[in-house]
């Protein structure tokens, strides 16, 4: 996984609550095994019914063409668990999302891909949102994970909290599967114990058929 230390660039405000993954990655519009994730990002919202870009949508406005930080409201990424809603962010260069809160699965998908999810308390978030709107893409913000700070125009640095384990995982770009495989022996031991205690949990088969008989 790509490590994350800090990102500096344009912060784009998308100040709505409960933005769901159908909105972020409307996969119904490009049903393919490997769609163009950048093109898919907010495609429905970015596009007017006639297919032309909606000039009012923040990500279409010239000053936000190359965003690095997305700033949004409560419960960002609710709905479907689709990871395309994270891959699309990375595909357009967004490396950090600053939100009032994240949906549980979306936040996990961010951590899995080196996309930094920053949660700010409402009063801190409100102030930061005002600064992002005032900057209007003309000045850069920095989200620094090492220092756990947001730095930018219009006010003092903003400290943010993130669980130390999540921070370490992002800073080091750790391979999550690799971390777990350090416990391969314990997994095997658990399986052996369960196979004795509750063998029906360690075998899954259609009992209308003899073991080994294919369906």
């Amino acid at each position, binding site marked *: 996984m790509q490590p994350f230390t800090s990102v500096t660039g344009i912060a784009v405000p998308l100040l709505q609550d409960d933005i769901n993954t159908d909105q972020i990655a409307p996969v119904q519009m490009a*049903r393919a*095994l490997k769609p163009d994730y950048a093109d898919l990002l907010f495609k429905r919202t970015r596009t007017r019914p006639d297919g032309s870009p909606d000039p009012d949508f923040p990500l279409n406005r010239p000053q936000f063409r190359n965003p690095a930080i997305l700033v949004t409201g409560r419960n960002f990424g609710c*709905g479907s668990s689709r990871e395309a809603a994270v891959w699309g962010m990375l595909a357009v260069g967004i490396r950090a999302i600053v939100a009032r809160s994240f949906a549980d699965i979306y936040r996990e998908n961010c951590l899995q891909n080196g996309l930094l999810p920053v949660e700010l308390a409402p009063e801190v978030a409100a102030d930061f949102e005002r600064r992002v709107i005032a900057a209007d893409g003309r000045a850069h913000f920095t989200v620094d994970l090492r220092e756990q700070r947001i730095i930018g125009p219009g006010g003092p640095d903003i400290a943010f909290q993130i669980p130390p384990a999540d921070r370490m995982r992002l800073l080091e770009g750790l391979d999550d*599967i690799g971390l777990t495989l350090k*416990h391969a022996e314990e*997994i095997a031991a658990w399986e052996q114990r369960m196979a004795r205690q509750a063998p029906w949990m*360690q075998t*899954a088969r259609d009992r209308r058929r003899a073991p080994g008989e294919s369906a």
Partner: protein
Amino acid sequence: MGRTLFDKIWDAHRVATRADGRDLIYMDRHVLHELHAPHAFECLERAGRRVRRPDLTFSVQDHTVATRPGRTDTTNPDGGDFLRAMREGSRRHGIRLFDIDDPEQGICHVVAPELGMVLPGATHAVPDSHACSVGGLGALGYGCGTSELEHVLATQVMALKRPKRMRIRLEGRLGPHVTAKDVALRIIAELGVAGGRGYAVEYAGAVVRNMPIEGRLTLCNLTIEMGARTGIVAPDETTFDWLAGRPWAPQGAEWDAALAGWRTLRSDDDAPFDTDVEIDCTALEPQVTWGTDPSQVIGISGRVPDPGGADPSHRAGMERALAYMGLKPGVPLAGLAIDRAFIGSCTNNRLSDLEAAAAVVRGRRVAPGVKAMVIPGSQTVKRQAEARGLHQVFESAGFLWGEPGCSMCAGSNGDRGEPGERCISTTNRNFEHRQGTRVRTHLASPATVAAAAVAGRIVDVRQLVGVTV
């Protein structure tokens, strides 16, 4: 201090705690679908890893399959690549596949419970947010994205942080034609779409104890719509009766041994919950959503709320929802004309759902101009429904009766509404464009959707069938 049911299952499946503090929770069953698994197979192979337990992993084709009778891989042109990639990936890794022509194919969240593949006290991973459905059997379902799916393939565990615990006690008694779907929508209205964030939910109380298993599956299915990743009902005799004799369930001495363990699966009386909520369901009406998230819901006799009177933080969202839905504050939902009615999805297409809808439809016809469709949850449900003649009830009334799949819930298989249509639907998400570009979705129970289909407008099913309330 006692432990909650959630903690008992969690602790029993905790293999280790990683250096980063995450618990490795063993996944007894892992069920995949074709939208996300092919990508994970590829990543796994690129990393030179193998599927640790192909014998505990199952593949199901459900999201992109066409529902038209006589379907093939290419009936939905966008689906073929997914179906083939799933077939080839499952073969490469030795995973049992429920393919489009399998006599037990269906939606993953319908197939696993009905076969007895998932059991009380088990853990269950699916790369789909509605994995929580299996909580209805007393199992712990965890939905996930593609990376975590690959993680489970490689390790058979998920690396999770222990969530907080919430109990929702549902008290009272449900009136006629008021169902688990109505209860679930009411809960989401009360708690909000983020009310369950960070929690594992246990549903308890008289309403749950009296609820049949298929209702409990519906109730737990909608847990993710209030933001909680998993929800569970303690298994009881209703659960064990429902599971006994299912083809994949243990039998004989193994069944007896399993049953003895399952009977201990309940929260201790003094178990601590971080949040405890009680909802009295006695006066609950059939619920219908008016907006574009599942918390924007009212009883059938209610009127669309006025954003002007709402919490300021919700006002903008409500105004957007009203504009999308083409509704004005203060209007009743009852009487609103519909273009389309859909009965299906992992939320509401099990046999009892179809029976509830058929009971309303029998002897009636779909209103002129309304397009109505019933998609059973699985081939098993379809066979059982046909054995009872339900397909004739629906077809003679003017419904289309199709082959199992996610269909108009996920919008991934070509089944969708036309722009601007108003659709009443038994599914789980009324998000903008979910059922087609500019389609306006109203979520409701199978009985309420059936009633609207025959009336041509949203109605109180109890009035349509002449029940006194």
